[in-house]
C-alpha cells in the first residue's frame, strides 16, 4: 500500500520525487542536527507527514511511531490532574487508536495467519539463540529443544499456506468491512485530537512539546490516509492537513511556539517536499477531471487523438462497463438468491466441513507422498515416525470434527461439528476417528485383542482404573480402556511396548494399504455428509432468480444484458494480449462459462412454450457457480480489465505526445477497481468527486500558503547561503549549497495558489531548471492560471523520465547489437 511518495500511486506509474533527492542530499551534506532538534523542527514535521524520503515500514507503523512519541511526552507531564485534564481525555483514546490501527493492519490477514507467522518468527529466533547455548548448559531447559523448534517452523509454514488459502476464500468481505470501519474510526479520533488542539488551552501553553507531538500525530494519520489506496483517503487526509494549518494559523502569536524554524536545511526540504506533493496531488486531480469529462463526452472525439489512443480508450470504456456489469449483477442477483435461515445453517456446516476436509486431505496426501519411500535407514525410520505423528494429527482432528473424540472415559475438549456428529450412530461416536482408519470387522477384531491383553495385565488394569491398588474392582470401564489404548497405540505412546497388537497398529498406520483404506473410508463419509448438508434451492427462489436474471429493472439492465456486455469486452481484447496472457488470466474458461450462461439465458428468454424446470435450475446452478465469491469472478474480471488496459497502454505509450495522459487514465482505472472492491462507491461515478477533490486540494494549498509565508524567508535565506539573520555562511558550507536547489525550490512554488510577491519578483524571477535540451523557466509559468502552472514541475519531471527511458532503451539496443 505504501509507496516512497506521500501519495499512493500504482506501481506502474513512475513519479520522480525531486524532494527525495533534496532530502538525501541535505541529510548527508548538511546533517549537523541532532535527532532531538529535528523532531521539533517545522521541516521535519512536514517531512514526516508528507514522506518524501523513502521511509520503511507500513503506513500504520508510521502513525504508531508518531503516537509513541506523544505517549512518551505525556508520561513526562507531572501535573496530569490539573490543567491537562480535558486534553488527557482526548489522549486517553490512544489505546483505542492503537486497536484501530491493529484492525487496519489485520486487513488481508486473519488472526490465525498472524499467530502462525508469529510462531515461525519466534521459533526461528529461539533456534538462533539455542544454538549459541553450549550443550548441557542449564539454560537450555528454558527453551524447547532444537528438533521441536525445527518441527514447529516446518509445521507452521505448512499451516500458513493452508490458512492463506482459506483466508483468501473465506474472509475477504469481512476484512474489507473491518478496514473501512478502521478508516472511519481513525478519522474520527484524529478529528477529536484536532478539535482539542484548536482550544489552545493552558495545558498546551505549558507543555508545548505535547502540542507539537499531537500535531505530528495528526499529520501522521493524515499521511496514512494519503497513502491509502482508496480515493476517499485524499479527502480525509486533506481535511486533517487543513486542520493543522488552520490550527497553526489560529495560534500564530509566536511561530516558534509550534515549530522551530532555525534548522534551515530541514526546513527547506520540508517545504520543498510539501510543495511538490501538494502540487502533484492537485495536478493529478485537475487532469483526472479533464479526462473524465473527455470520457463522459465520448472517448477521444477530437482529431488529435491517435488511432491507438482511441482504441485504448474504447477498450477501457468496455472494461469499465464490464466491471460495472459485474458489480451490478452481483448486487442485483445477490438479493434474489438469499437463503432461508435453515439453508444458511446448512451452508455454514457445509463450509466448515469442507474446510476441515481440505486440511485433512492435504495432510493425508503429504503423508502418502512421504511414505512412498522404501528407504530403511535410521533417518528413514525417524521420518516414518514423523509421518505417523502427522497422520495421527490429521486423522484425529478431522475425525473429531465428524464423530467427536473417541469415548475413552475422559472428557477432552472437542471441536466437533455438532450437526454432523449428532447424525452419527452411538457406536460411530464412541469410535471417533477410529472409524476413518478401520472397518467395523477390523475394529471388532482389534477390540478383542486389546481387551484380552488389558485383562491379562494387572499393571494395565490398574493404569486403566479397572482394578484398584488393593486388587479390588476399579471404577473404569473395559470398553473405554480399550479405545483409550488403541488411540495411544496410534499416537506411538509407550503402550506399543506392552500390547503386541498395539505395535502392529502403530507400524502399519502409514502403510500404503492402510492409507488407501483411510482415503476410501474418509471419502465415503465425505460423500454421505455432503449429500446430507447440501443446499437445495426452493422453487420460489429459482423463479425469483430467473426473473431477476432476465428482466430489466428500473434504470438497470438485466443480468443477461450485463453478461452480454462482458462478452463484448472479451471480444475487444486484442489478439496479442489473448495469446500472451490469456492462459494466465484464465480467459478461455471464464469466457466459456459466460457464453454458456448467456446461451442458456437467451434460450429461456426467447422460449414461447413452458420453460422446462431443468433449464431454470441449470441456469441457477451455473450463475451461482460463476458468482460464488470463492471463485473470485469479480476479482478476476478486475484483474483482466486492468491487465488489458496496461497492455494497451504499453503499446500506445511510444506513439502519443503526452504520455502522462495515459498514466492518468490507468491510474483512474486502478482506483475505480479499488473503490469497487472496497465498496466505497460505485465505479465510474467520479466526476463530481473529482470536482470536490479539486476544491479541497485547492483549499489545502491555500492553507499551506499561509504556513509557507511564515517560514519562507528562512528557507530562501538558506538557499541564498545565509543564516536566519541574513549573515552569509562560511565558504565551506556555502559551496555545498548548489544554486540548482534554489531553482527547484522556486519552480515548486508554482504549486501555490498565490505566490508571495517577493518570491515571484525578486527571488525566483530568473529561476530555471534544465535537463539536456529540456528547460523549464519560472517566468514561463508564473503568470498562468493556477490549474495550468500547478502541473509544470510534474510534467517536466515526467518528460525527463520519459527521455531517460528512451535513452536507456537506445543504449540497451546498442549494447545488444
Amino acid at each position, binding site marked *: 500500500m505504501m509507496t516512497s511518495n506521500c501519495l499512493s500511486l500504482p506501481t506502474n506509474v513512475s513519479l520522480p520525487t525531486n524532494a527525495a533527492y533534496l532530502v538525501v542530499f541535505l541529510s548527508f551534506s548538511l546533517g549537523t542536527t541532532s535527532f532531538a532538534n529535528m523532531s521539533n523542527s517545522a521541516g521535519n514535521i512536514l517531512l514526516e507527514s508528507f514522506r518524501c524520503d523513502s521511509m520503511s515500514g507500513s503506513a500504520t507503523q508510521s502513525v504508531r511511531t508518531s503516537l509513541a512519541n506523544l505517549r512518551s511526552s505525556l508520561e513526562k507531564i507531572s501535573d496530569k490532574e490539573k490543567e491537562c485534564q480535558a486534553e488527557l481525555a482526548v489522549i486517553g483514546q490512544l489505546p483505542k487508536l492503537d486497536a484501530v490501527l491493529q484492525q487496519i493492519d489485520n486487513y488481508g490477514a486473519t488472526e490465525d495467519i498472524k499467530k502462525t507467522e508469529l510462531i515461525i518468527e519466534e521459533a526461528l529466533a529461539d533456534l538462533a*539463540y539455542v544454538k549459541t547455548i553450549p550443550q548441557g548448559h542449564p539454560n537450555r531447559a528454558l*527453551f524447547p529443544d532444537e528438533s521441536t523448534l525445527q518441527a514447529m517452523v516446518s509445521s507452521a509454514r505448512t499451516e500458513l499456506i493452508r490458512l492463506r488459502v482459506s483466508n483468501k476464500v473465506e474472509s475477504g468481505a469481512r476484512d474489507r468491512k473491518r478496514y473501512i470501519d478502521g478508516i472511519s474510526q481513525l478519522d474520527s479520533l484524529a478529528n477529536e485530537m484536532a478539535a482539542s488542539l484548536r482550544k489552545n488551552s493552558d495545558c498546551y501553553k505549558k507543555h508545548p512539546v505535547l502540542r507539537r507531538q499531537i500535531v505530528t500525530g495528526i499529520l501522521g494519520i493524515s499521511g496514512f490516509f494519503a497513502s491509502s489506496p482508496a480515493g476517499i483517503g485524499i479527502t480525509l487526509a486533506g481535511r486533517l492537513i487543513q486542520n493543522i494549518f488552520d490550527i497553526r494559523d489560529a495560534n500564530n502569536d509566536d511561530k516558534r511556539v509550534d515549530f522551530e524554524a532555525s534548522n534551515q536545511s530541514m526546513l527547506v526540504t520540508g517545504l520543498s517536499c510539501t510543495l511538490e506533493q501538494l502540487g502533484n496531488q492537485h495536478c493529478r486531480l485537475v487532469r483526472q477531471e479533464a479526462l473524465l469529462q473527455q470520457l463522459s463526452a465520448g472517448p477521444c472525439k477530437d482529431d488529435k487523438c491517435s488511432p491507438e489512443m482511441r482504441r485504448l480508450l474504447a477498450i477501457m470504456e468496455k472494461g469499465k462497463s464490464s466491471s460495472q456489469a459485474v458489480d451490478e449483477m452481483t448486487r442485483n442477483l445477490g438479493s434474489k438468491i438469499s437463503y432461508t435461515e435453515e439453508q444458511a445453517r446448512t451452508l455454514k456446516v457445509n463450509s466448515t466441513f469442507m474446510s476441515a476436509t481440505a486440511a485433512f486431505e492435504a495432510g493425508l496426501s503429504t503423508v502418502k507422498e512421504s511414505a512412498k519411500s522404501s528407504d530403511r535407514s535410521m533417518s528413514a525410520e525417524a521420518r516414518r515416525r514423523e509421518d505417523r505423528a502427522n497422520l*495421527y494429527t490429521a486423522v484425529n482432528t478431522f475425525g473429531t470434527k465428524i464423530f467427536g473424540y473417541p469415548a475413552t472415559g475422559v472428557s477432552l475438549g472437542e471441536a466437533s461439528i455438532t450437526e454432523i456428529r449428532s447424525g452419527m450412530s452411538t457406536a460411530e461416536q464412541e469410535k471417533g476417528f477410529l472409524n476413518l482408519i478401520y472397518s467395523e470387522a477390523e475394529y471388532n477384531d482389534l477390540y478383542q485383542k486389546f481387551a484380552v491383553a488389558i485383562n491379562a495385565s494387572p499393571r494395565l488394569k490398574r493404569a486403566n482404573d479397572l482394578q484398584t491398588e488393593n486388587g479390588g474392582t476399579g471404577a473404569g470401564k473395559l470398553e473405554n480402556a480399550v479405545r483409550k489404548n488403541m488411540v495411544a497405540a496410534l499416537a506411538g*505412546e509407550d503402550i506399543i511396548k506392552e500390547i503386541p497388537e498395539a505395535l502392529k497398529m502403530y507400524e502399519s498406520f502409514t502403510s500404503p494399504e492402510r492409507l488407501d483404506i483411510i482415503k476410501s473410508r474418509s471419502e465415503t463419509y465425505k460423500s454421505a455428509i455432503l449429500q446430507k448438508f447440501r443446499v437445495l434451492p426452493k422453487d420460489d427462489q429459482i423463479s425469483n432468480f430467473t426473473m431477476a436474471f432476465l428482466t430489466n429493472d428500473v434504470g438497470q439492465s438485466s443480468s443477461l444484458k450485463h453478461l452480454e456486455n462482458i462478452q463484448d469486452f472479451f471480444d475487444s481484447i486484442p489478439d496479442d494480449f489473448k495469446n500472451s496472457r490469456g492462459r494466465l488470466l484464465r480467459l478461455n474458461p471464464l469466457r466459456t462459462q459466460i457464453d454458456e450462461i448467456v446461451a442458456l439465458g437467451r434460450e429461456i428468454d426467447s422460449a414461447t412454450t413452458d420453460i422446462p424446470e431443468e433449464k431454470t435450475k441449470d441456469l441457477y446452478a451455473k450463475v451461482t457457480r460463476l458468482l460464488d465469491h470463492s471463485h473470485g469472478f469479480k476479482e478476476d474480471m478486475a484483474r483482466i480489465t486492468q491487465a488489458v488496459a496496461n497492455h494497451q497502454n504499453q503499446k500506445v505509450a511510444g506513439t502519443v505526445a503526452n504520455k502522462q495522459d495515459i498514466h492518468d487514465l490507468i491510474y483512474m482505472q486502478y482506483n475505480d477497481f479499488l473503490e469497487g472492491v472496497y465498496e466505497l462507491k460505485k465505479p465510474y461515478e467520479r466526476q463530481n468527486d473529482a470536482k470536490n477533490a479539486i476544491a479541497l486540494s485547492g483549499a489545502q494549498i491555500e492553507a499551506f500558503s499561509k504556513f509557507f509565508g511564515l517560514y519562507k524567508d528562512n528557507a530562501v535565506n538558506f538557499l541564498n547561503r545565509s543564516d536566519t539573520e541574513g549573515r552569509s555562511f562560511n565558504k565551506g558550507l556555502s559551496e555545498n549549497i548548489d544554486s540548482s536547489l534554489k531553482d527547484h525550490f522556486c519552480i515548486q512554488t508554482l504549486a501555490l495558489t498565490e505566490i508571495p510577491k517577493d518570491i515571484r519578483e525578486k527571488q525566483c524571477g530568473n529561476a530555471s531548471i534544465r535537463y539536456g535540451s529540456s528547460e523549464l523557466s519560472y517566468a514561463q509559468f508564473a503568470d498562468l492560471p493556477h490549474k495550468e502552472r500547478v502541473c509544470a514541475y510534474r510534467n517536466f519531471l515526467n518528460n525527463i523520465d520519459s527521455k531517460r527511458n528512451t535513452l536507456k532503451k537506445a543504449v540497451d539496443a546498442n549494447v545488444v547489437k
Partner: protein
Amino acid sequence: MAATTSARMLKHYELVIKQPENLAVTHSSTHQIGIITSRKGKSLILGVDYQPISIRTVTKLAKEDGVDAKSVKIKRYKTSSLFYYETPDVIKVYSTMGGHLSISKKSTRAFDFNQLRLVQKNKKVVSL
C-alpha cells in the same frame, strides 16, 4: 491456533495441578482445551493446545500483558521448564514442552506454583 501445528507437539505432555479445588480455568477461544478430573478428584489435568514456548517469548507475552519480565517465575526440570506470571485477572502458565493454562484469579482460593507439574500423558501424576 488450529490444531495441526500444536497438537502434534502436545501429544505427550500435559500440565497438571494437584489439589485444584476452586480453580477456574479460562482459555482463549482459539485454543482447544481439555479438562480431565482424575478418579480420586484430587488432580486436575489440563492439556491445552499450545505450542512449546521459550522464556524469551514468555517474557515478551508478559510485557504485553503489562507484567515486568522479572515477575515471570520459572520452575526448572532437567530438560524443560515451566513459566508463570500473574496479571490482575489471571495466572498464566506456559511450558517449554507445550501447553498453556490461564487460571482465573476470581475463583481461585490460592494458586500454588509448587502444585504444578508437567507430566507425560497417560502416566501417573508425577514430577519429571
